[in-house]
């Protein structure tokens, strides 16, 4: 039954996402030589926000923004198969390929922009402007890497790409992997590309006006979306997974790398991050694309 399949995907992504986000806070704390919160701290935060009142309303679009974001996150998750061999936990992936996933990943930021736009909060507007500016730069190397993978495999199906890896794509096409990883660090909102919600600069940015249940919804969708992105990266570059343990292991290693990378670097300014993403990773991706195409012939 596809309904149970989707429910299982949703619940596992929800739980693992919050666990990872708690681990992120804890591990970052260890990097900063402090004890840090418990692993479940993010879960506590979200439940608390679900029990709080909302302090302000800006009309129906304001309420719709987080809902569109959550829809985008959950739909992205449903179109990414967890395991390439098994039928279960494949969700809706038989009805849509990598193009659909890339399209759905755009839905969240756009919904957020519309919801935030009506608030009129200058910090939120600044945050979303930074976000959309970075989005275009961030997608360039990632799309080139993904297009290269699609042309190598002659398929846009995620499960096919995941299965068609004698060794991992990350080892076989290191340049494409490096380029995609730069984008991935930016997608996960890690330093040095964390210009969107930059604390002390734009006061939590796009989330500035949201409170109570809508903030909790934003936190939940961000956890689910993070896990969906991790699974996508594992499928595309790290050989996919056959079972839950393998999936958790691989996503966790990837996640740990992203956290460590983020903990090491300070924040770029917005123009710096756009400049960097458009120049360095894009150049690496183009070279990788050319090499992969030449090697394939």
């Amino acid at each position: 039954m596809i309904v149970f399949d989707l429910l299982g995907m949703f619940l596992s992504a929800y739980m693992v996402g919050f666990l990872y986000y708690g681990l992120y806070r804890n591990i970052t704390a260890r990097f900063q030589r402090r004890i840090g919160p418990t692993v479940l701290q993010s879960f506590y935060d979200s439940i608390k926000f679900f029990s709080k009142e909302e302090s302000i309303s800006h009309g129906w679009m304001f309420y719709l923004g987080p809902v569109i974001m959550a829809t985008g996150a959950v739909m992205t998750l449903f179109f990414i198969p967890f395991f390439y061999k098994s039928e279960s936990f494949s969700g809706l992936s038989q009805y849509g390929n990598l193009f659909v996933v890339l399209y759905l990943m755009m839905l969240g930021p756009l919904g957020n922009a519309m919801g935030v736009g009506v608030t009129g909060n200058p910090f939120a507007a600044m945050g979303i402007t930074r976000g959309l500016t970075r989005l275009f730069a961030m997608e360039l190397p990632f799309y080139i890497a993904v297009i290269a993978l699609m042309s190598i495999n002659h398929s846009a199906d995620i499960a096919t790409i995941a299965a068609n890896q004698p060794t991992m794509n990350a080892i076989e096409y290191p340049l494409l992997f490096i380029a995609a990883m730069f984008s991935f660090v930016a997608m996960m909102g890690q330093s040095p590309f964390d210009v969107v919600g930059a604390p002390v600069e734009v006061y939590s940015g796009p989330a500035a006006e949201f409170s109570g249940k809508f903030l909790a919804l934003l936190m939940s969708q961000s956890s689910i979306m993070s896990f969906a992105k991790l699974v996508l990266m594992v499928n595309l570059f790290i050989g996919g997974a056959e079972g839950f343990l393998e999936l958790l292991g691989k996503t966790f290693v990837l996640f740990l790398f992203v956290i460590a990378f983020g903990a090491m670097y300070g924040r770029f300014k917005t123009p710096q991050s756009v400049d960097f993403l458009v120049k360095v990773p894009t150049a690496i991706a183009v070279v990788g694309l050319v090499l992969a195409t030449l090697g394939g012939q």
Partner: protein
Amino acid sequence: MEEGFLKEQQIMENDLNSDTSHKSSVDFLMNWFRKRSIFVLAYGTGCGAIEMPPTFTSRYDAERLGIRGAATPRQADVIIVSGYCSYKTLRRIIRTYEQMANPKYVLALGSCTVNGGMYWDSYNTIKKLEDYMPVDMYVNGCMPRPESILEGFIELQKEIAEGKASSWQKYEENYEFYRKNQEAVLGKTVAPAYDADWYLYDGGL
């Protein structure tokens, strides 16, 4: 002011008599989550603000207790009034406090918030914070060190878990009392009207 004090005495007595035994298990659970997750507004008044950065950063690490900073009042649970309040600051504090979402708590630091402290005869600071807004927990000292602030937070967490920290209800129920005291020092314009796009209109962009 005498009438105000009498009324406040009444409020305190009512608090003692109030029955808290009707809390359901859902309330208990929610209070536990509220206790475990406290977002503190990044806002400092007076000298006590200097004690807050060490409390929240690596040295004293309040995040291990589930206490972390929040950038906007919409997302904050606790506002720390950290020291003396001039009339000018009080206006901002009240405005910020009213923007916070329920349930919200107030932590007051230092002697200045209790009775004016060393500013007791100043011409432009308030003396007793509780006349103008409700306070859940006082941390005394001049200034309290980060250890004391953490101690205050732990006591506040206990009160939240027991459902006793309900100053936001007190503020709503006795709004006239607080408003009268606020207007006595700030005049009729305590806070501007809360409009969604206030910055487009008078005095804005």
